[in-house]
């Protein structure tokens, strides 16, 4: 028989899988490991969010955009400037925090747009099929084929660089990403018997989507969104570095790196500080994504 048949597997009493072979001590160690793998990255991200959004409101910081040229190039741990100042006297710590605000805002917006628009398109394509599926898939493919960075450059040139334009440009990347993921996950879930059972129970289609499909694809979307979040932050940083993102003098990690680049050998900390911060943030996002995937298993 050449072609695969729609076979009905004759299932029977399948023996349960062998239990995980760990003794009590190993079990505790495993649970501890699992908890640490979740809480360490989560904790770091919570700390970052706190520092970027809450801390500046409760502590008065030097301006992140205007500096006193007299206090230029102060080293770290100088009085009043925890991390020092850059070549034109702008406080580095403030730049870091306000730059972080922008980074999180943009990444959050892009991710939410991706989930809402891309996710909806994907679920619709996957659930309804028919002519909707190929049409939506081609639209998503077109968006995906579009180089997001080039789009950002074009927008910046044509309309002037701004936070909003960066969000539009990067959304062209996140929408198809979530779209394809949602479509694939929806197709998988749609074939399962409980979906047929739900339809046989008489549940209306919209309710089926909202209460059966969405809860079951949500774990995959959440873990993907964390990874996407990190990628978006890096892309945004790249745009700022090139000067096509957040316009100067607004603080951003990318522009910090760009300006720090000029004095890399003399004062490497101007480049290292934002770079390492970005690195640890994205790494935490990835690790958190892994920890969640571990926790949720293949459910």
């Amino acid at each position: 028989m050449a072609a695969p048949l729609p076979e009905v597997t004759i299932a029977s009493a399948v023996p349960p899988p062998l239990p995980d072979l760990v003794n009590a001590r190993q079990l505790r160690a495993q649970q501890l490991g699992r908890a640490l793998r979740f809480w360490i990255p989560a904790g770091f991200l919570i700390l970052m969010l706190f520092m970027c959004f809450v801390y500046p409101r409760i502590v008065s910081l030097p301006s992140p955009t205007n500096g006193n040229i007299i206090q230029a190039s102060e080293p770290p741990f100088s009085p009043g400037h925890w991390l020092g100042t850059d070549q034109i006297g702008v406080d580095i710590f403030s730049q870091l925090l306000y730059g972080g605000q922008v980074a999180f805002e943009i990444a959050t917006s892009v991710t939410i747009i991706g989930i809402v628009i891309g996710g909806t398109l994907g679920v619709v394509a996957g659930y309804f099929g028919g002519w909707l599926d190929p049409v939506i898939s081609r639209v998503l493919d077109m968006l995906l084929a579009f180089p997001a960075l080039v789009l950002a450059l074009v927008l910046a040139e044509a309309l002037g660089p701004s936070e909003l334009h960066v969000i539009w440009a990067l959304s062209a990347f996140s929408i198809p990403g979530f779209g394809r993921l949602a479509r694939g996950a929806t197709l998988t879930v749609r074939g399962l018997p409980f979906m047929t059972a739900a339809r046989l129970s008489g549940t209306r289609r919209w309710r089926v989507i909202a209460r059966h499909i969405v809860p079951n694809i949500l774990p995959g979307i959440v873990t993907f969104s964390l990874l996407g979040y990190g990628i978006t932050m890096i892309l945004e940083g790249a745009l700022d570095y090139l000067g096509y993102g957040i316009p100067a003098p607004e603080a951003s990690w990318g522009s910090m790196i760009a300006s720090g680049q000029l004095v890399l050998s003399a004062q490497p900390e101007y480049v290292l500080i934002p770079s390492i911060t970005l690195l640890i943030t994205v790494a935490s996002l990835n690790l958190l994504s892994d920890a969640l995937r571990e926790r949720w298993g293949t459910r």
Partner: protein
Amino acid sequence: MTDALLQVEDLRVSFAVGRGEIRAVDGVSFSVSPGATLAIIGESGSGKTVCCRAIMGLLPARAAISGSARLRGGELIGLPEAELRMHRGSDIAMVFQDPARSLNPTMRAGAQIAEAIRTHRQVSKREAQAQAVELLRMVRMPLPERRFHEYPHQLSGGMRQRVMIAIALACRPKLLIADEATTALDVTTQAQIMELLLDLQQQMDMALIMISHDLGLAASYADEVVVLYAGKIVEQAAAVQLFGTSGAVRMRYTRALLDAIPHLERPAHALLPVVGGRPPDPTALPPGCAFAPRCSHAADDCLAKAPALLEHAAGHRWACWHPCENGTGSGN
């Protein structure tokens, strides 16, 4: 019994799980003579699969195994992996339930058989291929030369199982363990495969251990039957002593199994004599007989103390304080 091919004595396998210990196999002893067929019957969680994997050395290293399993006198338990690998395939082979998952989907069927041959013997590739085709012929695969070049997904369930058997037979093992090998097959295919196994047994003087939950299969094809429950043997006898017109099942669990199986002779809509409850939790086994909580004839002594497996009649052992009379449960 001294010329038994496989002699298993007091086999125990347990796993440490968190707070407790799972005694998957709790003192199992049996023997298999050369060329004979033994059926190990049990439901999920009875320990039947763990038992045979312990013999084959296929359990993870952290399983605590004690007892003895001697193949032609040579001890298998505790043997280092390298020596076990020599036994596997050439002395003992195993066939599993789901050939779709046991066969490599990216390798052609014939290549997998040839690989099995070359693992144990120094033969050239060409020679191995020729032997593989011969094996396919021996397992009655239609058009063996063509099937040799096909991938597993191109074959039906029955054909895949034949390939599995061919791989298992590659080096003429003395003992074949079939772990639910026909469970996922159609009734007609199952009959074909069982006939095939029996013929091969005769041809190659090979012993067969059938692991199954199907008592009917055991009755038809086995010489001797061992029934497991919660890791212990609860009844053990020759098939003729248990089934059919001259048979008498004694232990209540075996009786329950036999009653629960649909019989052709029963009238339509007959209510089955039902055993309530669920298989026991392996981490929390009751102190007395493991089946007592579900047994309709359980008495106080059943709950207090576990019955020992004793040979109450010639060649027929059972572990029950209140066994069935005359092979029928009273009131059935």
